[in-house]
């Protein structure tokens, strides 16, 4: 039985796809057979972030409509062992994702995979609902910014009322992943702190990903940022994967690197 993880947020552009690619790669590196599914029908992008855009032949909707079987649609990652991608289709048909169809695909994947990561589209429409409905675990990706935090709270409400687990009287395991965190702006009182966001959303913190140049570099190259082991963001994602697997690690990258004596006196940055 695979564990189904949804990466969700409500708001767009907060780092869901980056997170899905990084966490999926991280779990695969730990030896778990992992598939990452793109639920953003019509706006496929996971393939680009994971660098397999030119190998897409069949997609998720083809499998649901039984125009192709799973093995034809699954793309095996070239860099990382145990890692597969199921791309979204570029069709504009919004009703392409049916609950029965999604369930059948997840059930089939469940037989052979350890982890299924569902990369949710933004919003609370059909695609986002389908991505979270079957989830056992939710990674709520949030930026330290008012609209993102509010939307995350809304998504938590949906997880607690409209998911399959909620309907069965069970709970979805919720995790907060704070992305694009900028410690120096937090210190200057210009950005919500980790503690502020934890206070408001009241769910356990899985990780804090610092705002990092490495993320854009990684997406430019189509390499999940977790593979950039030198980078702060890569290391922060690696920590998050370890925590998801139950390890207790201290959170890193929350403080501004210490300044020297003269810099402090003069208030320079």
């Amino acid at each position, binding site marked *: 039985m695979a564990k189904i993880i949804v990466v969700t947020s409500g708001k767009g552009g907060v780092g869901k796809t980056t997170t899905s690619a990084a966490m999926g790669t991280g779990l695969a590196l730990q030896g778990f057979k992992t598939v990452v599914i793109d639920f953003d029908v019509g706006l496929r992008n996971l393939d680009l972030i994971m660098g397999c855009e030119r190998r897409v032949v069949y997609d998720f909707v083809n499998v649901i409509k039984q125009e192709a079987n799973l093995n034809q649609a699954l793309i095996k990652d070239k860099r990382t062992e145990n890692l597969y991608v199921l791309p979204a289709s570029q069709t504009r048909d919004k009703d392409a994702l049916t609950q029965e169809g999604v369930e059948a695909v997840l059930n089939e994947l469940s037989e052979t995979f350890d982890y299924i990561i569902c990369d949710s589209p933004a919003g609370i429409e059909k695609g986002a609902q389908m991505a979270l409905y079957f989830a056992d675990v939710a990674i709520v990706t949030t930026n330290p*910014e*008012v609209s993102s*935090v*509010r939307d995350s*709270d*809304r998504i938590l*409400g949906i997880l607690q*009322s409209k998911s399959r687990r909620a309907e069965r009287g069970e709970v979805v395991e919720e995790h907060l992943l704070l992305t694009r965190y900028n410690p120096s702006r*937090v210190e*200057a*009182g*210009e*950005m*919500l*702190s980790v503690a*502020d966001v934890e*206070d*408001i959303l009241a769910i356990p913190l899985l990780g804090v990903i610092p705002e990092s140049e490495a993320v854009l570099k990684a997406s430019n190259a189509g390499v999940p940022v977790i593979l950039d082991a030198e980078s702060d963001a890569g290391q922060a994602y690696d920590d998050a994967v370890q925590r998801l697997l139950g390890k207790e690690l201290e959170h890193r990258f929350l403080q501004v690197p210490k300044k020297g004596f003269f810099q*402090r*006196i*003069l*208030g*320079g940055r």
Partner: protein
Amino acid sequence: MSFFDYFRSNKKPTSAELAKERLQIIVAHERGKRNNPDYLPQMQQEIIEVIKKYVSIDQDQVSVQLDSNDDCSVLEVNVTLPD
């Protein structure tokens, strides 16, 4: 914080504090509504219509609230009657 910052008065909340305060208010408000049944707005409307038949009141003089505790729900209808 630099040495010179100690001389500035620091009474105004930082923008992050402002953000947190606004978020806490709106999130609490929206959470309160989260578990409301879908029929509540329409029921509120109909209650207002009934009262209007007898007393002339405005929409905002009636508030309908549903509070749920562990084992009972309380529907509170508050009408401010004109003098």
